[in-house]
C-alpha cells in the first residue's frame, strides 16, 4: 500500500508448532509478508487447512509468531502484552456467550471497557437494529438461527468500532442465500466508515465480490502468499449480481488459475495422510 502507514503489517512471519510427541515440528506459516492498508478490504484465500486461521490469530495478537514482526498502524504488536487492541475478531465457530441474551452479548465489549450500563444498552439497541435484530435482544443464542447468531456476533464486534476487522470464514456455516444477505450487509456496514478488513475464506467468489485485494496462499505446510490480485470492481456492489459480470468472471478465472494447483496439492497431501 502506498497510502501512509498500513493498518496491519505482517513482516516475514513464521509460525512453527512443536509436535506433541517429540516428532518434527510443524511449520504452519512460513516467511509471510502481508499488509492491509487503512480502509482496505483484503481477503486471503487458500486451500483448506493451509494455516489461514493461524495467520489471523497472529494478526489478532492471540498467537505469538515464532519469528517475524507484526505491526499495527506502525506500532509493533507484542502478544505478551495482550491482544491487538485496535482489532475486532469475528470467529468461524460460534463465540457468543450462551448464558447471555442477545443484547447482553452485544454490549459485552462495552461492559469490559467500563461503559455505564444505560449507555451501553442504548448503543446495543442501536446495533441490534443495524444488524436487523431489533426486538430479538432478549433471546438467548440457542433460540436464534445460525444467521441471526452471525448477525449478533457482527454487532458484538462492530459496537466497539475497531479500526481493524479480522474475520475468519465468518459466514462459512450459513446456507448460500443467508450468506449472500450477510455479505451485502457486511459491505453496507463497512461502506459507512471504511474499516480495514482482513477477511479469511476458502471461497474465491466470496473473496472477489467483497474485497479490494485478494491474496492467495499456497497449500500447507509452510504456507505463504503466492499471488496478490487487485479487485477493481466498482462499488457499491451487490454480491449476488456482481458474480454475473464479465469483469468478475475474468478475475475469477485469473485467480483460480493461480489457486487451482495449490488446491489440488492440498487435496493430494490430505488424501495421502
Amino acid at each position, binding site marked *: 500500500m502506498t497510502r501512509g502507514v498500513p493498518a496491519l503489517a505482517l513482516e516475514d512471519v513464521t509460525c512453527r508448532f512443536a509436535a506433541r510427541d517429540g516428532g518434527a515440528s510443524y511449520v504452519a506459516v512460513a516467511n509471510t509478508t502481508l499488509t492491509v492498508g487503512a480502509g482496505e478490504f483484503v481477503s486471503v484465500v487458500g486451500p483448506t487447512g493451509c494455516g489461514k486461521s493461524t495467520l489471523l490469530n497472529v494478526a489478532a495478537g492471540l498467537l505469538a509468531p515464532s519469528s517475524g514482526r507484526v505491526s499495527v498502524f506502525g506500532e509493533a504488536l507484542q502478544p505478551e502484552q495482550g491482544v491487538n*487492541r485496535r482489532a475486532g475478531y469475528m470467529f468461524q465457530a460460534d463465540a457468543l*456467550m450462551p*448464558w447471555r441474551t442477545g443484547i447482553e452479548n452485544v454490549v459485552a465489549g462495552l461492559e*469490559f471497557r467500563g461503559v455505564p450500563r444505560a449507555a451501553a444498552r442504548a448503543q446495543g439497541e442501536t446495533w441490534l437494529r443495524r444488524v436487523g435484530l431489533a426486538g430479538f435482544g432478549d433471546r438467548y443464542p440457542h*433460540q436464534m438461527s445460525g444467521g441471526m447468531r452471525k448477525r449478533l456476533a457482527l454487532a458484538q464486534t462492530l459496537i466497539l468500532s475497531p479500526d481493524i476487522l479480522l474475520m475468519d470464514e465468518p459466514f462459512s456455516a450459513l446456507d448460500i442465500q443467508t450468506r449472500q444477505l450477510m455479505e451485502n450487509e457486511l459491505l453496507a456496514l463497512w461502506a459507512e466508515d471504511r474499516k480495514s478488513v482482513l477477511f479469511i475464506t476458502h471461497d474465491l467468489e466470496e473473496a472477489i465480490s467483497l474485497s479490494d485485494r485478494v491474496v492467495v496462499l499456497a497449500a500447507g505446510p509452510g504456507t505463504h502468499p503466492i499471488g496478490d490480485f487487485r479487485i477493481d470492481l466498482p462499488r457499491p456492489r451487490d454480491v449476488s449480481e456482481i458474480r454475473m459480470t464479465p469483469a468478475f468472471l475474468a478475475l475469477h478465472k485469473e485467480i483460480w488459475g493461480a489457486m487451482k494447483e495449490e488446491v489440488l496439492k492440498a487435496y493430494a497431501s490430505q488424501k495421502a495422510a
Partner: protein
Amino acid sequence: MRLRSLQILIFALLIAGWYLLTAPDLIPAFYFEQDNRAAFFFGEPQKVFWVIVAWFATGEIFSHLGVTLLETVLGFVIGSVFGLGVGLWLALSRTASAVTEPYIKGFNSMPRVVLAPIFAVWFGLGIWSKVALGVTLVFFVVFFNVYQGVREVSPTLIANARMLGASQRQLLRAIYLPSAMSWVFASLHNAVGLAFVGAVVGEYLGSSQGVGYLILQAEGTFDINTVFAGIVVLTVFALVLDAIVGAVEVRLMTWQPRTSETEKV
C-alpha cells in the same frame, strides 16, 4: 394419565403385598414358625402409617425433621461453595492442580463415611459433625464437575472475550464463572442427595436429635414400624428437596436449551 395410574397401581400392589405377607393370622405362616414373626421383622404398613400420623399430629417429628434438614442444607451450601471455589482455582492454575492432584485423588477414593466418628470427636454430637460429613461428600461432586467444566470452556469463547477487551478478572466473571455454574447445577441433584446422606448417617452414628436419631432409637427397641416410618419420611423429604433444586435450576438456567424446546425463528 395412563402412566400415573400405572404408577399408583404399582404402589398399591406393593402395599397390599406387604400387608398380606406380614399381617399375623391373615394367611398361615409358611416361612417363619410363628405367625407374628413376619410383622416383627418387616413391620406392618398400616402401623407404619399410624406412626407417621402420630408424629405429625403430636408435632414430635418437626424438631427432628428441622434438625436433619438444617444439617442437609448447611452441608449442601458449604460443600457447594467450597467445591465451586476450589474447582475454579485448580482449573485455572496448572501448577496448583498438578501439585494437589494425588491428594485430591486420595481424598476422593477414600470412603468418606468413615470420617463420621472422627467428626463426632472433633465437632461434638451437635449438628456440626453432621454438616462436616455432608460437606466432605458434597464437596467432591461439585468440585469435580466445576473442574471439568472450566477446563472444557470453549477456547473460542475465551479468545472472543479477550478480543472484546476482557481482563483476567472479567474473563473469570463473564466466562469461567457462568460456565462453571452450569456444571454446578448439573451436579446439584446428586449433591443434595449426598448432603442428606451425610446428615442421616451422622445422626445415626451419634446424636440427640434428628430423623436418624429417631431411627436409631426405634432400632434399639426393635420397633421396626418406627424404623420404616423414619425411612418413609426421609424419602419423601429427599424428593421434596430434589424438586426444590429442580425448580431453582429451571429458573436460573433459562439460557440452556431444553430438548422439548422448539421455539426458534
